[in-house]
């Protein structure tokens, strides 16, 4: 069930020049609904004259024990800037949980090779997905890409969750180039690929998966107004017609998208 909750900012840590990690809990201590990897939330932005709509942010981690949710927010405009300036004990009004989720393989062998590819702030949902997969007995492999080493975030968390490979465009960490240039894509075999990041990156990953006949899910971030299927603004053209990224997505199987046509 979707809820609109006032949430208290437990902490807000600046991770690099434009990314912030907010940890939030319901202000009234009510239990958070279960969040699945791939879900997102809609955050209200107050006191920002040019911001009218909420800002959709993916779930970076959900800690059921602490009743806490992590949100990795990139400061890229007036709306996200206001969210990133939140201070400890500030209240944010948040609608959650929204969207579908990544498919965790059922009845799969634990040796099943799962590759999670994140680019930029698109690494955010990959952390939570990885934690859930690890909890199910899988050993996920992460491939994280950024412009330079300072764009790669939460590395300790990722390294505790699985095997991690890196690419940077300037070569400052891991292999130089884009994620799709990384040698593991040639040297290793994977059964499933999950990805989130800039659209050109996801399209390149989808092309690779398509050619290798690997099951692949991507998380889209089409512009949306509501986040719960009412406005019909965030549509993606699919084999099933125009689907809402907010309710039919944000996670899509690449075989349903029209990216290869």
């Amino acid at each position: 069930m979707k809820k609109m909750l006032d949430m208290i900012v437990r902490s807000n840590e600046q991770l690099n020049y434009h990314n912030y990690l907010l940890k939030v809990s319901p202000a009234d201590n009510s239990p958070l609904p279960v969040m699945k990897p791939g879900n997102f939330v809609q955050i209200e932005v107050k006191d920002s004259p040019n911001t009218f709509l909420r800002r959709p942010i993916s779930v970076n981690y959900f800690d059921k024990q602490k009743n806490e949710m992590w949100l990795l927010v990139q400061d890229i405009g007036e709306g996200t800037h206001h969210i990133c300036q939140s201070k400890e004990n500030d209240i944010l009004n948040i609608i959650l949980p929204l969207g579908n989720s990544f498919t965790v393989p059922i009845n799969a062998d634990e040796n099943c090779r799962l590759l999670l590819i994140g680019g930029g702030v698109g690494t955010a949902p990959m952390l939570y997905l990885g934690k859930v997969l690890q909890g199910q007995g899988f050993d996920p492999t992460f491939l994280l890409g950024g412009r330079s080493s300072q764009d790669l975030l939460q590395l300790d968390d990722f390294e505790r969750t699985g095997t991690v490979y890196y690419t940077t465009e300037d070569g400052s960490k891991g292999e130089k180039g884009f994620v799709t240039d990384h040698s593991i894509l040639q040297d290793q075999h994977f059964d499933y690929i999950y990805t989130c990041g800039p659209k050109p990156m996801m399209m390149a990953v989808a092309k690779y998966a398509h050619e290798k006949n690997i099951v692949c899910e991507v998380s889209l971030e089409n512009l949306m107004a509501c986040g719960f299927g009412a406005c019909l603004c965030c549509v993606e053209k699919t084999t099933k017609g125009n689907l809402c990224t907010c309710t039919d997505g944000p996670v899509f199987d690449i075989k349903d998208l029209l990216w290869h046509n």
Partner: protein
Amino acid sequence: MAQLNVKISNLELKNPVMTASGTFGYGTEYADFIDLERLGGIFVKGTTLEPREGNSYPRMAETASGMLNAVGLQNKGVGYFIDHIYPEIKDFGTPIIVNVSGSSIDDYVACAEKLIDLEKVPAIELNISCPNVKEGGMAFGTSCKSAASVVKAVRSVYPKTLIVKLSPNVTDISEIALAVESEGADSVSLVNTFLGMAIDAEKRSPKLSTITGGLSGPCIKPIALRMVWEVFHAVKIPIIGMGGICNWQDAIEFILAGATAIEIGTYNFINPTASIKILEGIENYLDRHHINSVTDLIGQLEV
């Protein structure tokens, strides 16, 4: 407790707070957030005779205090609505009003005819004001002659309450209101969105796939309010007012300007509980001012 019930011709509403077509899906999208039964009515998504895919992405651009949309009436057609959606929503306990659109007069008539027998759809809203479709839509609502002709044709087949949604993209909205009143419209709802556009300066390109789109949200409220005021002084049929309503004060302003009922639109996206908060605010206002019935407030602007 003040009386909240109002009448739009033969349509009896338990209260004047309704939700606007295109901003409320089919109601089900909001069922987690509010008790839908408390609403005065629900105007469901724009419906056409045949299914429509709508316009290409991007369909939305945020603006200061509002947004532009270019959805373009994406819907699965009236047949799908009747067979698959209506059975799911008919027992919400509030009137379902279907917003009807078309590319030709025949489309409007055929679509309206199919809705007559639906017991829980006591009214339709003729959308002659959608700015986001190439044919029909707003083209019908921007001249008195074409507005009158579509209303006349639908009136001749549709016996239930007929509401006509007016476009603000006209020189004199009261002339259009008079034209549809004279052809038998039971009510006018206003305003639909304002034609606008947004440009990405860096890319030197439009932000919407259709270049122009419909502007809504609190940025349009003062103009919408003025238009309700003008139409109130021109016609005798009841007015349903909308345009940027975000709180109970906005709603009261529209009623004072002449609206018998109001619709909450774009603000549902930001606060999906807004309609109920507005209803409670109106109730509180009436009690505070010792007004027995919300109908005593309609058009009571003191000038």
